[in-house]
């Protein structure tokens, strides 16, 4: 609610400024022009949106699967923890701006380079909180499972994996925001469709309002995805949102 009020105030001020200052619309389009573009270009925006949304969703899915596999592997093996973890941290310092055009050169203008970049960026926020969740299970709880004769796998399945779910969801929520940026960046490096592609083409055509409209669509998608994850979290993990009297 407060976010809506803030947004209205922001757009109001912006609209007033563009009117009063007489700034060129292709330098800073007024919100009314962006709104007009949202309506007039809706078919264009929609067709490009589906491309980018697909890149984000699939890229995050890849990051989720790879991230989970990595987190579990590192959790189970001290050797892998020493071998892989530093590489994971290192992977996050790869300048995507540099790599993205190379990936396009290898794989063309299609989905593959976008998937790789979105997955690369989202992977780390999935691994770290998930691994933390797995590692931070109460030592006494592990002991309890041992007195019941539980195997390592049973302890993982019954205690550790559920305990890591809140961390996993936090990681997914963090990923949502950066996934949109990563997808846009990947499209800038080489693409024939997508909201990033649309923005890239709109600027030299002096269609700044359309570029802003594309940004707005992308933001709305991220917020919606974030909201969906937050909703899933509340529904699936009601226990994670309670003040903890005890355990793990």
């Amino acid at each position, binding site marked *: 609610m407060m976010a809506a009020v803030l947004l209205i105030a922001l757009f109001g001020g912006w609209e007033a400024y563009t009117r009063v200052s007489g700034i060129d619309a292709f330098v800073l389009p007024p919100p009314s022009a962006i709104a007009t573009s949202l309506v007039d270009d809706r078919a264009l925006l929609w067709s490009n949106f589906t491309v980018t949304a697909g890149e984000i969703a699939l890229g995050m899915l890849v990051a989720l699967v790879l991230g989970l596999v990595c987190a579990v592997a590192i959790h189970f093996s001290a050797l892998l923890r020493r071998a892989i973890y530093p590489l994971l941290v290192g992977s996050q310092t790869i300048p995507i701006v540099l790599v993205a055009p190379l990936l396009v050169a290898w794989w063309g203008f299609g989905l593959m380079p976008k998937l790789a970049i979105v997955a690369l960026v989202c992977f780390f926020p999935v691994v770290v909180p998930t691994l933390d969740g797995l590692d931070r299970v*109460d030592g*006494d*709880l592990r*002991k*309890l*499972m*041992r*007195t*019941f*004769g*539980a195997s390592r796998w*049973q302890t993982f399945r*019954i*205690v550790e994996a*559920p305990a890591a779910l809140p961390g996993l969801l936090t990681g997914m929520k963090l990923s949502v925001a950066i996934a949109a940026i990563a997808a846009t960046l990947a499209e800038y490096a080489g693409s024939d469709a997508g909201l990033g592609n649309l923005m890239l083409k709109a600027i030299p055509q002096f269609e700044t309002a359309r570029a802003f409209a594309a940004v707005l669509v992308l933001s709305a998608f991220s917020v919606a995805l974030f909201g969906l994850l937050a909703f899933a979290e509340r529904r699936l*993990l*009601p*226990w*994670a949102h*309670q*003040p*903890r*009297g*005890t*355990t*793990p």
Partner: protein
Amino acid sequence: MQTHMRAPAKAQPEDETELGSVVLRAVVKTFPAERRASQPVTALDGLTLTADPGETVAVVGPSGCGKTTLLELVCGLTAPDAGTVLSAPAALMAQRDLLLPWRNAVDNASLAMNVSGVERSVARERAGALLRDFGLSGFERALPHELSGGMRQRVAFARTLLSGRTVLCLDEPFASLDALTRQEMQDWLAGTLALAPRTVLLVTHDVEEAIVLADRVLVLSPRPGRVVATIDVDAPRPRDRSDPQLVALRARALQELRG
């Protein structure tokens, strides 16, 4: 710490342990120094203790006298450096309830049965019946955060009982509860054990709790822990904590504790 464990579920070879007795003879347990500068810590030094089947033995002692180590030895979570530990399969119940926050009361109580592969519906049925016996009707599907401290502790106790172990190791089970709830839970535990006797090792620093619940109270010395006094409590049950005999025993135990 993790690799050289004995499987706690396996019964020991001696016949007496099958019936649910616990025998510790001249047990020594030393923990290596945690930091380079510090000394290794001897938690237990020549501790001898027996609990007969169906007997409740309380162990009281000052903080850090190795009480928890004692229970971990009995549960097979750790091995002694010297001496022998013979015990029927034992289950541990800690001061904290350690309930899984995502499992409801019934499923938490079923935990040990889930591990041993009891069919889920059977486990739920048995756990539900026991929880109802424990006065938790209507709370079977409640998550731990929806239960009070005393209720959670009862669920934890149900989980311990349903593990099917003949020996119960209780590590300050009511220490985290408020005074009134603690007394209620002690009376409740006494009643439950009267109905379904088990061999119980109760570690506590609450002397009154020890006297009210146990057949025998062992007083441990400060670290390294050894038994310095044995107090037999042969008062009839149910016990009244204001009974002069119990009050006298309590005073004696406190005196022994102070050395």
